Structure formats: structure tokens, C-alpha cells
């Protein structure tokens, strides 16, 4: 059977994935950090396993005494068995608990490490890579790894300890029997290699296929109005059925893999028991092994089944965990920009000097841009979509470093300043007005951690948000964001503006900040925004022409260049493309 065709890739990987060496190094680091816990778990489980070996030995000795002496110390043997059972139970419980404590510590380390690295990513990387890949690492990969760390690692360690101890007990009981018990291992090695070459990827595809059905469903629900309006219901049902078919085709494939592999595993176990019974029996008939030892040996061979199954069952989970770990570790490999902590701006003038910039080698989005932003002035960037306005805005906000040329603030190069310093001076205000899960206070505090409630409330008043904020059930302590009290887009925008008031940067770059809002709701936001803008230098990426009209300077950006530059009256008088557009807008409006 061939694996099904893959119709679709998962979410694009936009951030680096850790190399094998990096993953190993990280694994070793974790191992060192949790050495003690691991040793404790192995010791506890070893004790439990050894205690578990007593039962078959007792039965063997009973058989031995019954076969040779016709009776004997039954009560004593049973007493030993009982004591061993109690030890086995207690230590099994303890080793499981120890394993869980260890697993949870490692998991907490992993997820906290990941977030620590994530929040240190440079803003330019985030702007370009988006956050989708990072979110999927922070949720899906952490979940997958949880299975590995919580279950697979302890199970594998424990099972390996068991195999070694049981084999050891077999050797002690009878080296001959130990040899017959491992007869089936070589073929198992080959079939397992065949299986494990195919299994991890197939299981990943299977679970991706399973998740894809939900993605389609979530979209159908989420886009319910659109689906209904465009009469897409039937198509969505067909699409879901197709995704279910694709998922099942992977289920079928992995089922086939197991259908081939399982019998070889079971066969190996059967061979071990059968071999020890028949060959061991023949040895016993020739007096090489006593019947008691034969009994114990056969039971030990049977006892090997369980831990070997565990190893085989959890092995691919470990491989899957390794892939997820590589994605988490990859975040550590994003290069940090070289910054100079000694760099301080002198003054507030923002200047771009012969700046060129491209997202990819050889294709410049901006070419040879020179722009001087006077402190306290208002500059409007206008031009068609895709001309490079947003990119220019991000260069002026210090988010991207120019490919050629310099962007400076008060004479100091923005891209060489630490991000934490840049943002006290310049902020980008864009369409993204994320409301974080948490209280309204949390959502404001992030802009200035030391602010007290009076300052927070003052910021809300400043952006005209006091009225609805007061009306919230618990005031500043109201839970907002996903799952909490829902804020309207306009309120979310005001929240973002209140953060700006608190952070208080002297220069703002506005990129379509309210463009996703209904223009009619946007109107009273403009008032909030205008209060925030008062007294600051503003670079506005403009969609509506009356914006440009009021700016001190207008820069028309077309195809990566500034094609017109000047005040509104100057540009209208010069009769260029801006003047033409303005006339059509004004005459009509």
C-alpha cells in the first residue's frame, strides 16, 4: 500500500526550525538540569521490577519442590510472594509519581523557555513572519511535546529498565533459556525498522488530516454569514467530506502499517515463549535445566512482552516529540540584531537618507528615499496600494533596518538602537489592536508597568474611553479579550490609543490605524486619536485625502519612490497626479 497523496501543506513555516544538533544539545541541557529526578525514577522503577520478578521465581520453586520432594515450604514461598507484591505495588506507584513530577517540570521548563525566547524576537522578524507559525508552535507543538514528555519519555525509560532487569533475571535463572527467549529478536528488528521509517511521518499526516477537518468546520462556523449569503453551504459540506476522506485515507494507511507490523511483534513474543517452553523443555528432559527453573524461565519470557510492547508503542511518539522540539528550539536560532546600547538620540528629528529596502535580495520595494521629518510636524504618505507606503513607515519607526542608506532619530541610527529604547521614542500604530486575555488593567499596564490606577484612568479619559470603561462590571479589573467581556473594534482601538498615551512616545507612525473600522464608527475615534496626536510628530499613511490636506507635508509614494513632495497647496498648484486626484475627490465630495 502506498501512502496517500498529500493535497495540502500545513501552515507555512516562517521561522527557523532547530537542527538535529541543536535539538540534541537542548536535550542534553534538559537532562543535566533534571539528572536527579531521572535517577530517582529509574531507581524506584528498578525496585518495583525486581520485586515483580519474585512471583515467577516463587512459582518455579513451588514446582521444583512439588516435582522433586513432593511438597514443602508453600507458606514461606507465598509469604515471600506477598511481601514482594506489596513492594512492587508501592514502588510502581512511587516511580509513576516521580516520573510525572519530572515530566511536568521538564514541560514547564520547555513552555516557559519558549515564551521567553518568543517575546524577545525582533519586531522586524514578527512583522515579516507573522505570528501564525509562532502561535502554532506555542500551542500544537507544546501539546504534542506534552505527550512525549509526560508519557513517552518515562514509559521508554521504565520499559528499558524492565527489559534489562528481566533479561538479567533470565540469564541468572538459566543462560540457555535466555538465549532461546531472544531468538525472535533479529526478525523483529528488521520489521520494526521498516515500520519506524514510515510511521512518524504518517502519524503526523494523520493527525494533520484530523485537524484539517476541524479547520474547515471552524471556518464554516466562523464565516456563517458569508457561507449563507453566498449559498456556500453545500460546498462546505462537500469540502468537509473531502477532508474527512483524506483524513481516513491516512488512518487507513497507518492501519495497514500496523497490520503488517503487529503480527511480527506478536510472533516474536510467541516465539520467545514457545522457544523457552519447547527447547527449554528438551533441555530439561536432558537434565540441563530443572523443571522449576523452566517454569520461571517461561514466565520471565512472557514477562518480557509487556515492556517490549511499551518500547515499540512509545518509540514513534518520541520521534514526533523530537520534531516538535525542533520547532520550539528553532525560535532560539533567530539572529538578534546587533545593537549598540550606548546609542542615544539627540533631539527628535527623524531622517531617511537615500534609503533603499527590499524584503528579498534583488527586489527593492523602496528606492533611494530621502525624507526629513521635522519634530512636531505632520507628514502624510499617500499613494496607491502596494507602492511601499507601509514599508517606509516601518523603516521610519525603526522596525526594519534599511538595506542601503540610513534612517536616524536625533542623529542616531534607529536600527542600531535596542528595541526597548526605540519604542520609548517612536511607535507604530497599525490595524492590529489586539486585546489581550486578562484584565483591562493588564491591557493598559503593559504600556507602562509602574502606572497607578489614576494614571490608567486618565489615559482612558484622554482617548474618550472613560464612559464605557466605567460601565464595565468590574472597572479596571474586568476580564477582557477572548473569553472575557467582548470589546467592540472601536473600543479595542481606543484601548490601543490609551496604551500610546501611557507609553508616550514623541513620534507616531500611523498605518491605516482605523481602516478596518466602519467609517461611521471611525468618526468618533478620530477625536480620540487627535487628542493622542496632539504635540507629537506624526507620520500618517493616508487613505483618505482630507488627511493629506491637513498635513504639513505630503509625500506621494509611487512604485517605491517619492514622486511628489510638498505641502497641500503647493502640490495642488503644481498640477501633478496628486492635484488630479484631489480635484476628483473634492469636486465629487
Amino acid at each position: 500500500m502506498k501512502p496517500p497523496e498529500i493535497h495540502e501543506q500545513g501552515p507555512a513555516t516562517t521561522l527557523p526550525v532547530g537542527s538535529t544538533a541543536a535539538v540534541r544539545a537542548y536535550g542534553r541541557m534538559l537532562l543535566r538540569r533534571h539528572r536527579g529526578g531521572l535517577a530517582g525514577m529509574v531507581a524506584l522503577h528498578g525496585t518495583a521490577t525486581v520485586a515483580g520478578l519474585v512471583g515467577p521465581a516463587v512459582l518455579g520453586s513451588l514446582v521444583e519442590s512439588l516435582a522433586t520432594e513432593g511438597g514443602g515450604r508453600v507458606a514461606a514461598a507465598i509469604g515471600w510472594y506477598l511481601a514482594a507484591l506489596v513492594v512492587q505495588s508501592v514502588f510502581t506507584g512511587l516511580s509513576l509519581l516521580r516520573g510525572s513530577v519530572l515530566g511536568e517540570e521538564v514541560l514547564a521548563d520547555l513552555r516557559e523557555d519558549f515564551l521567553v525566547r518568543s517575546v524577545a524576537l525582533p519586531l522586524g522578524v514578527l512583522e515579516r513572519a507573522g505570528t501564525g507559525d509562532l502561535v502554532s508552535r506555542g500551542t500544537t507543538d507544546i501539546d504534542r511535546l506534552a505527550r512525549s514528555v509526560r508519557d513517552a519519555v518515562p514509559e521508554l525509560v521504565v520499559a528499558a529498565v524492565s527489559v534489562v532487569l528481566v533479561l538479567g533475571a533470565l540469564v541468572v535463572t538459566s543462560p540457555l533459556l535466555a538465549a532461546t527467549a531472544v531468538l525472535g529478536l533479529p526478525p523483529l528488528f528488521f520489521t520494526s525498522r521498516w515500520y519506524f521509517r514510515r510511521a512518524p511521518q504518517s502519524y503526523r499526516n494523520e493527525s494533520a488530516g484530523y485537524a484539517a477537518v476541524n479547520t474547515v468546520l471552524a471556518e464554516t462556523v466562523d464565516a456563517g454569514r458569508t457561507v449563507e449569503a453566498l449559498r456556500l453551504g453545500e460546498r462546505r459540506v462537500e469540502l468537509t467530506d473531502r477532508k474527512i476522506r483524506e483524513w481516513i485515507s491516512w488512518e487507513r494507511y497507518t492501519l495497514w502499517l500496523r497490520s503488517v507490523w503487529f503480527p511480527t511483534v506478536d510472533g516474536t513474543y510467541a516465539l520467545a515463549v514457545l522457544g523457552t517452553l519447547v527447547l527449554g523443555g528438551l533441555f530439561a528432559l536432558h537434565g540441563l535445566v530443572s523443571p522449576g527453573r523452566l517454569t520461571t524461565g517461561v514466565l520471565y519470557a512472557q514477562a518480557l512482552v509487556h515492556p517490549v510492547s511499551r518500547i515499540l508503542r512509545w518509540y514513534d511518539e518520541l520521534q514526533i516529540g523530537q520534531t516538535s522540539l525542533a520547532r520550539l528550539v528553532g525560535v532560539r536560532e533567530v539572529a538578534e540584531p546587533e545593537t549598540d546600547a550606548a546609542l542615544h538620540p539627540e533631539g527628535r528629528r527623524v531622517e531617511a537618507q537615500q534609503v533603499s529596502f527590499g524584503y528579498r535580495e534583488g527586489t527593492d520595494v523602496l528606492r533611494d528615499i530621502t525624507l526629513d521629518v521635522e519634530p512636531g510636524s505632520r507628514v502624510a504618505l499617500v499613494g496607491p496600494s502596494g507602492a511601499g507606503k507601509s514599508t517606509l513607515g516601518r523603516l521610519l519607526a525603526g522596525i526594519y533596518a534599511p538595506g542601503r542608506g540610513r534612517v536616524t532619530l536625533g542623529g542616531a541610527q534607529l536600527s542600531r538602537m535596542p528595541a526597548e529604547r526605540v519604542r520609548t521614542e517612536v511607535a507604530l500604530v497599525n490595524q492590529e489592536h489586539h486585546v489581550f486575555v486578562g484584565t483591562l488593567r493588564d491591557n493598559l499596564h503593559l504600556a507602562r508597568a509602574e502606572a497607578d490606577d489614576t494614571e490608567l484612568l486618565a489615559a482612558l479619559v484622554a482617548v474618550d474611553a472613560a464612559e464605557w470603561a466605567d460601565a464595565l462590571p468590574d472597572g479596571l479589573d474586568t476580564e477582557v479579550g477572548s473569553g472575557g467581556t467582548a470589546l467592540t473594534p472601536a473600543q479595542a482601538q481606543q484601548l490601543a490609543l490609551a496604551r500610546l498615551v501611557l507609553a508616550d512616545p514623541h513620534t507616531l507612525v500611523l498605518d491605516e490605524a482605523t481602516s478596518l473600522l466602519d467609517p461611521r464608527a471611525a468618526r468618533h475615534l478620530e477625536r480620540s486619536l487627535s487628542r493622542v496626536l496632539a504635540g507629537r510628530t506624526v507620520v500618517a499613511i493616508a487613505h483618505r485625502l482630507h488627511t493629506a490636506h491637513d498635513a504639513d507635508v505630503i509625500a506621494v509614494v509611487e512604485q517605491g519612490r517619492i514622486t511628489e513632495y510638498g505641502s497641500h497647496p503647493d502640490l495642488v498648484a503644481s498640477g501633478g497626479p496628486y492635484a488630479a486626484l484631489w480635484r476628483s475627490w473634492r469636486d465629487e465630495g
Partner: protein
Amino acid sequence: MPLVPLPLPDPGRPDLSSPLGFLRWLGRAQRRGQLLATLWSTLELGSMAALPVAIGRGVQAVVDHDTRALLTAGLLALLLAVVQTTMTVLLHRQVVWNWIQAASQVRQLVARQASALGGGLSRRIATGEIVAVSSGDVEKIGWYVELTARLYGAVLAWLGVSTVVLWRQPGLGLAVLLGVPVLAAAVWPLLGPFERRYAEQRALGGKASELAADTVAGLRVLRGIGGEELFLRRYRSASQRVRAAAVRTARTWAVMQAQEVLLPGLFVIGVTWYGARLALDGSIGVGELIAVYGSTAFLAAPLRVIGEAAHAWSVARVSAGRAVKVLTLTRDDAPADGSAADGSEADGPAREGAAGAADDGAELVRRAPRSDLHDPVSGLTARAGRLTAVVCGDPDAAGELAARLGGRPVLAEGVAAGPSARLGGVELDGVPLAVARAAVLVHDKEPVLLSGTLAELLDVPRSGRVEPAEALAAARAQDALEALVDGSPECAGDPMAARITERGRSLSGGQRQRLALARSLVADPPVLVLDEPTSAVDAHTESRIAAGLRELRAGRTTVVLATSPLLLDQADTVLLLQQGRVVASGTHRELMTDEPRYRAVVTRDENEAGAGAGSAARPAARPAADPVGSGLAGSGLAGGAE
């Protein structure tokens, strides 16, 4: 054994009377699979139970120095091993398939339900709740369905072993017969606390995961403004709470596992002791002692299945309840007289009425291009074949108007339906949903781009009059196409093969709006209602879209709710709405000169806009009105942020 082809072409009509009824219905739908799995399970467990007999005979043969008997015992063990190995594979295949059948049926049902409810869904239930049914709950329901057959097998194996032992050694047999249920029940007291702790751990884990996702999703804000330390601290404490809860769960789990070793162990020891004494008496041989020991130890396997099934049953019942809840949701917008029924309700009592309505529906859709659209609530009339623009100061009122114009709007809870919009005199609220949607397409303020290739995005039910390329050209989406091609290397430069990610997140707001507009234009409905289709588009592009829209919709009925002069100027008629009523009409230029209220709204000056401009409280802190814009000094730049 061949497996049933899945997924089923039709998931069937479930029994939704109760969670239990639903689970039973799922079981009935795969009766053959359940029967086969029970058979395989019984045979598998039976051969496992019999293996100790073969081992006992082998040892007995050694004690008796009987080579022949040893080989016979070996042969028996071989036979049992072959049966067991075969049955394990057959059983595994069958139960996995049973699981998949149940899971895919539930998922198909949920998908059909989601499509049938459409816009009515998100008002009734959170997206997450529906998706949870299709992921987590499906797994639990499937788990239970998978386990039922194995449970029957386990019970049969236990009864079988008991019968055999009862026949050979009545005392032992009784012990086995009674011991197993007692041991199985011994796990249950711990199951409740375990479930509770586990649920707590899951809830905390979900919260931490949500916090991580939320922090990362808003990372651009954090990096741009600050607050990383605050959020890290919050996440650390959430993460540590998860750890502590998981360790609490592990404590109960460890006790359960220790108990699972101890109790069956005690049972085995008791039986072995009794057997050993019988062997001392000489009433059984060494071989039988081993068989007794092995068979009792084997009973741990069916015991585990019984315990697992009890566990699965307790969680599956809750999951089935959630599935039933989602599958019994209805769309509560049907007219009160019940005369109309749409496709999804066609099996109901109103069947005859529905057939009649469907005929009317075809007629309505056929006549739609030549019918005027009238809304009695606002007094708005959109003439057939014309481009009508509506200016409305209040965004909520505009959204409600757009929804009303399409007929059968989804009403907020507790809101009574007002008079219906009429298309050519026919009440749209009175026709089947599918007919209303075929006649009028309402392109709302937030159309969602469904993920897939651009070709898939534009593959909507359509008249065939407008080609995708024409629609994209009219919506001036060229730069969105370039962005798509840039973002999907696998499309090899063909924009139609380029992928749009979920909700079009890789595109800018303006690009998304234009692709959504192109999609509605391709559908080419008889009547198209557009609510602010270009609010995020720059002025350069908007003026070109306005022209493209007019050209492409020539001769078709189109209503645009907008405030941008660039769009309004292209309309045949512009209507001004205030406080929900049409107060003025004319062309854009006429209204600009003759109607100060209109000028006030369109040139974005609020003092003149009057009460209809918005419901938000506005302090009158604005400079005096100036229609053209020099008075906008206070907020001009702010407007530019749009």
C-alpha cells in the same frame, strides 16, 4: 475481513432524543462491525487464557519425562499463538474502523448542521463549542464505541474462564467468577477524584495554552509598546499552576496504578496458594497449578478492559450530550405562521407548503432582475437594474438595513421581526432561505475570505455571466493577486492557484476587501447589497473600483451602503437615511448642493450631521462646520489613519 468503505456518503438521521439514544444510534449504524469485533475479541482473549494450559502441560511433560507430551504441548502453544496473533490484528483493524466510522459520522453531521444554520449559528453557540464537538468529543464518543465490542469480549472471556475452572475445580471457579467483578469495581472509587483532578488540570492547561497563544498573537503590540515582562510573569504563574495540578492528578493516578498491581496480584497469590495446597494433596498436578496461576494472571487483561469501558462510558455520555446539543440547534428566524420552510426543514411537517414555496421561489428568482426592492421599515426603494447608494450615519442601523434587505435576517435574541423587505412585491421573509439568498446577495461589512486557492475562493454559485477575471479587474485586485503570488511559491506565478490563508490574514485589509468584493461580483446575483465594500481601500483605488463596479453591474440591481463621495458619485440615485428613515434622495451632486444634512455626513462633519450620525456620545468640541474640509484641522490627520 473487508472493512466498510468510509466515510459514508450520507451520515444518516441520528436519534437526538437523548445522549444515550445518540450513542445507541451510532452503535446500531455499525452493527456488523461491532459483531465482528466482539467475535475477534473473544477469540483473542480466549487464546490468551488458554496459553497457560499449554505451558502447564509442557512443564508437566518435563516432570513426567514425556517428550511426546512436551511436543504436543508445544504444538498447542503454537496453535494458540497463531490464533492470538491473527485475532489481535483482525480485532485491531475492526475496532479502529469502528472508531473511525463513529467519529466520521459525527463530524459529517456537525458539518451539515453548521452549513444549514449558516449566519444563525454564531449567535447561538460559540465557534469553539462546535469545533470541540468535532475534535475532543468525537474522540471520546469514538473511544466508547470502540470499547463496547472489546467490553463484550472481555465479559465473555471472563465467563468462559470461570466456566472452565468451575467445571474442573468448583471452589476456584467460584473465586474467579466473583473475584473479577469485585476487582473491577475496586477501581471505581478512585475514578471520580481522578476525573475531577484531570478536568481541573485540563482546564488550567487550556488556559495556559490560550494565554501563550494570545501573548504570541499580540506579540507585535508587546514588542512595539512594551510589557513583555508583565506577560511572561503571568504566563509563568499559569504554567506553574498547570504543573501543580498535573502532579495532583498524577498522585491519584499513581495510587490507581499501584492498586492495579496490588489487587489482581493478591488474587493471583490467593489462587496460587489454594492451587499449591491442592497440588500438595495431589488432587492437581504441577501442570495444572501453572495453568491456574497463568489463567488467573491473565484475568488482569479483561479486568483492564472493563475498567477502561467504565471510564469511557462516563466521559462519552457527557460528550454525546454536547453533540446532541449542537445537532438540535435550529435557526429561529422562520416566519411565525410557519408557512415557509427551507431545505433543511423540508422533512418537517410543513413539507407540502415547502414544495409550493419552492415553485414560488423559482419564479421569484426568475423575476428578481426586473423587480424593485423595497424596505417598508426605512421607506427605501431600490429600482430594478439601477445602482442605488444609501448614506446612513449610524453603522449599526446600516448593518441592520443590509440584513433586512436580504430577507430572513438572523435576529438577536428577544428581537421581534419587523415588516419584511419586498422584492417585486413578494415578502422575502416569507420565502425559503435558499430562495431569498439566491435572489438577493448581502455583502456584509465583514465578509470572511475562506481559505483555499484563489480559484476555490471564487468558485461560488454564480450566474455564469461574469468571469472571475472580469470580477477581479472590476474590484481592482491586481496588487492583492501579486501579494498572493509572492506569498505562495508553489503556485508557480499563477494567482488562481495561489493560496489564501485563513481569513486572508496574509493580506492587508484593503486587499481582503477587494477579493471579497470580486467574489460577490462573480456570483452576479440579481440583486446585490454591498455594505461599505471599500472602507479600507485607498482613495486612488476606490475611485477606480467605483467605476468598475458600475460597469460590471450595469443593468443589474445594486444597493451600496457607503459614505465615500468617490462611490456615491457613481450611483444612479443616492438616498439619505436619518434615524432609520429615508429623508432625501437625488444624485450625489444634487444632494451635495441642495441638502446640508447630506453634505454634513459625506464630508464627515458631525455638527451638521445631526442625531442620525451616530449613537456614541459626542462632546461638541468641534470647530464650526465647513463643508469642504478646511474646518477639519482638528481631526484631519486622524481621518488619515483609516
